[in-house]
């Protein structure tokens, strides 16, 4: 059930990625997760990807999680690669209508979401019906570990009998409070155990950490790749992670609306709604990284990524507010 408290927000997104290589790259293959997927609260109105140099081959398909993916091949020597993805998106409000689930800045009260133990039980082997879709996001994946360290970290939030989203929200708040946003601290290759130990990282790290905690509790949770509004509406603070691609998590609850996923953004300690634009989801970053490629040659390379998300002003009807 979607609580219609606001009207749709419309955004224009430009996501530019440029590589420049020290020596020519003779062969390059790239997988692009740059096309926003359609979902019940989001519609893509216009989308195009342009690539320089001209590609030798390109094809589109959906990956095993239903995300649109484009595969490029450049089979001649080149010294740079620029990929520009441009999209126009409508996002509808989609916060779950649950007592206790509100924006993080408001107080929580005990709500009707089922206890986290019930959810875990429903996902365990032997329960019927088998929740095939959710169970794909229940186990280890390249960047997410299922280990007792994460279970221990999560435990204070997962007290016996606590409603699941209450517990997840508490976990999110602790990650937000106890971890520092620090772009210098980690790279794509930083293991999530190190993130837990050093308590710093970026949105991807916090998402992987939260996923590790949730899956170590036996819950199903997926990684969401997307964007944030670059300039916030007036009076609201600018969120962390704008100007770049963003990442958050989504948690499964079987009994809500016959089974649905609810998003949580540990980097900003809130429940994503109309200011988060969903690009793709998977088990972790490896499944949905915006550009994943293999190059032959090139030596050292420089990478530049720029993301701009701007609200589109409707000339008629309800206009979105602009600064």
């Amino acid at each position, binding site marked *: 059930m979607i609580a219609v408290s606001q009207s749709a927000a419309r955004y224009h997104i430009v996501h530019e990625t440029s*590589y420049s290589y020290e020596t020519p790259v003779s062969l390059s293959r790239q997988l692009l997760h740059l096309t926003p997927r359609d979902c019940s609260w989001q519609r893509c109105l216009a989308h195009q990807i342009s690539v320089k140099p001209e590609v030798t*081959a390109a094809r589109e398909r959906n990956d*095993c999680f239903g995300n649109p993916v484009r595969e490029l091949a450049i089979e001649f020597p080149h010294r740079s690669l620029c990929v520009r993805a441009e999209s126009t998106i409508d996002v509808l409000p989609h916060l779950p209508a649950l007592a206790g689930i509100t924006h993080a800045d408001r107080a929580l009260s005990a709500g009707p979401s089922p206890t986290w133990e019930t959810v875990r039980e429903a996902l365990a082997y032997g329960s019927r019906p088998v929740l095939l879709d959710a169970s794909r996001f229940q186990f280890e994946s390249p960047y997410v570990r299922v280990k007792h360290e994460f279970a221990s970290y999560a435990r204070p939030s997962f007290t016996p009998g606590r409603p699941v989203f209450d517990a997840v929200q508490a976990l999110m708040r602790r990650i937000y409070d106890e971890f520092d946003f620090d772009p210098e601290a980690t790279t794509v290759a930083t293991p999530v155990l190190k993130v837990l130990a050093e308590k710093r990282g970026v949105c991807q790290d916090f998402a992987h950490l939260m996923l590790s905690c949730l899956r170590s509790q036996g819950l199903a949770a997926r990684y969401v790749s997307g964007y944030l509004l670059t300039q916030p509406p007036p009076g609201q603070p600018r969120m962390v992670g704008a100007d770049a691609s963003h990442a958050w998590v989504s948690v499964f609850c079987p009994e809500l609306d016959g089974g649905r996923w609810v998003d949580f953004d540990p980097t900003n300690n809130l429940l994503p709604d109309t200011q988060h634009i969903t690009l793709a989801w998977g088990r972790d970053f*490896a499944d949905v990284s915006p550009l994943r490629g293999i190059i*032959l040659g090139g030596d050292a390379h420089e990478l530049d990524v720029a993301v701009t998300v701007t609200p589109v002003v409707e000339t008629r009807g309800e206009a979105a507010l602009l600064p």
Partner: protein
Amino acid sequence: MPQSLLSSYQKKNDRFDEMLAEDGCVRPSWQPFLAHLAAATPEQMRHRLDYVRRRILENGVTYNVYADPQGADRPWELDPLPLILSPGEWQELAGAVTQRARLLNAVLKDLYGPQTLITDGSLPAALVFGHNNFLWPCQGIRPPGDTYLHLYAADLARSPDGRWWVIADRTQAPSGAGYALENRTIVGRVFPEQFRDLHVQHLASFFRQLQDSLAHWAPRTGEAPLIVLLTPGPYNETYFEHAYLARYLGFPLVEGQDLTVRGDCVYLRTLSGLRRVHALLRRLDDDYCDPLELRGDSALGIPGLLQAVRAGNVLVANALGSGLIESAALPGFLPGACRKLLGEPLAMPSVATWWCGERAALAFTIEHLDELVIKGSYPSQRFDPVFGNELHGSKREEMIARLRARPQAYVAQELVNFSEAPAWSTSHARRLLPRGVGLRVFVAATPSGHVVMPGGLTRVSAASNARVISMQRGGSSKDTWVLTDAAVNTFSLLKQSVGKADIVRGGRNLSSRVVENLYWFGRYAERCDKTSRLLRVALSRLVDAGADTLPALNSALDLCRTMQLLPTAETDTHAAAKARKAAAELPLDAQMVHAVCSKEWGEGLAGDIRRLLWVATQVRERFSLDNWHAINRLQHQLQQYSETLAGEDAQPELGEALAFLDQVLLTASSLAGFAMDNMTRDDGWRFLIIGRRIERLVFLANAVAGFLRLPSTRAAGSLEWLLELTDSIITYRSRYMIQPQLLPALDLIVFDDGNPHSVAFQLQFLVRYLDNLARLLGGPRDEALPQALTRLQAFDLGSFEGQSFSECSACNPCLELAGLLSGTALAAATLSDRLAMRYFSHVGDVSRQTFAS
């Protein structure tokens, strides 16, 4: 019955015995063989054992071939006595493993398709989605004929009641079929009459069916399908088998870097360009196959392979993702899956298995820990099997805590008492010893159903009462004889009729990497020969140094220094030069031994031999068995000689060094003979020969130039060793009947283009070959060598007339000719670089993964 043979053979009550029935009598299927053994003389048996050992050594059968460049390869262990299986027993066994192959194929089809096994609860999601070998990008890909397992292997063991159990399934790239084949070729020759009289089934038709099936399912493009065998390379523990099977099946042996994906098709990089590949028989693990979509850190894979598979443009056998069902946890769920997918009961049970992810199984496991072995559910855990009865005190508590904390990651299995079969005692003649045996059987999928290899790899435990059989842990192996009542199929792996589409022209499918290695094989083989010759010239004069031979010794030593085989005392500031200087102060004997076989890996003659062996292992499937024997002999000679030098107080003996040089020269000349006489004239061979010629040219030109420049060579006896060094002394004597003189000697070893050891001969040969190469493969003609040849031919040999070599000093015309020769050597070295740039340059270029967020 032969009591003496069986005197130390004890049948145990808690195990099945393959040879002895319950009542202690020899089983009927074993009787003729055992009777033969009993009749054989100790002498005969010793010969047979020696034969087995020699063949393994000569064929270079190893379990991890040269994985360590220091040469720590482990010879394959083979017991000469086969495991004998009766026709009736085999029929039942073959039927059961065929069913299992069908079942596992159906399981893969379901798990990479609709996943009904998960939705109806037949299989826990944790064992699929939690398994690192479930390849997500492969979901939804349907291979041709819905065949996932083109080759499947089952590890079997026999329970005490005589029933066969499945211990493990090998589904992604089963190894062992090649070793089984090699065991057969050896054991079949040890007992040829018994092999024939007992009606033992042959193996060849199985491999033919595998070949045909791959060709059948490969995409059709109107040409003969190119099928390659993909190996992770010589570091892999079963590389011997990859090379062996590639040669046996006639598939080019390729590594990931030999292949490239263009426009959704897979191509082999060859000298003459890209050639379309239709099928890959892979020995590379699933997740390493495509760094773009699978493991990004894999340098062994082929970026884009998955997309080529998705597009239906290449067959990969076994299908990518098939490693998923090697999980130790799966067997417990197979009876249910078999009823559901095939509608029949599972014919052969697996060893009893409990997946701890089920609550009842966890409780059972903890309660019966002493009778169980604990294994990991997922290969990524790298968890070695733990025997419950070996756990005590805190170790036991720790294990139980781990089981409770993450039960789905563990599997408990019943302990297996392997059945026992006789092995020939190597220490006591004429004794049979009971040893635990396990059997690996192979099943191939064909368009008309599954076929089982009538035989298999029998693995033998290192000791009696074994619980683990592992080739890694010192186990041995046996040939497996499956008897038949019907006529033996004597098919051999040669195509019965070759159509026009089957015709393959020489060398079209040679990868550039193979050609590069053959080129260096040629160079190193020649270098070993020439270095040995120069060292022998000096060493033989050092051994019997008298007043009359001393001047010749000194000049030979000087040339060794010029050619950098011996250290020089020149002052220099580099650390390496300092080390050389220190070495130059060693006694001469020690210096010479050091030059022959240095303790440093890459130095001296031994360094060149090791490099030769290394490049040979990279392309071993290209050499005939006899050729390979010669290479192996060289390896053993080097090993033996190094061992004599290894001890701290070992005294280096010049005589031994000389003997070693003689051995190396003998092997080098047989390698040269094989190259000329035994190899197909394809591009690979052409590059091997070009490598040899370039190396010889560089050596000759530098040696003669050095000789002309050195003052010490004016002494008596020097011209004689120069002729010896260049292998021209016989020709010289037959032509001139006089003591060596400079002018005729130079004519013979520099200008005479009829002498295969002359500078002019190498130059003319190379000019002709490179012209051919440029015509065949395209590219510019080489200009430097023809110019060097012209300059050399323009040199006036007459300028040496009337000059006495022994009285002159190093001046013109000696210096002029030396200059020409040095220029020739330089041109040859430059040519080598240009060949590498043009034909080999991409080798070693490794792809890298990039990420952008």
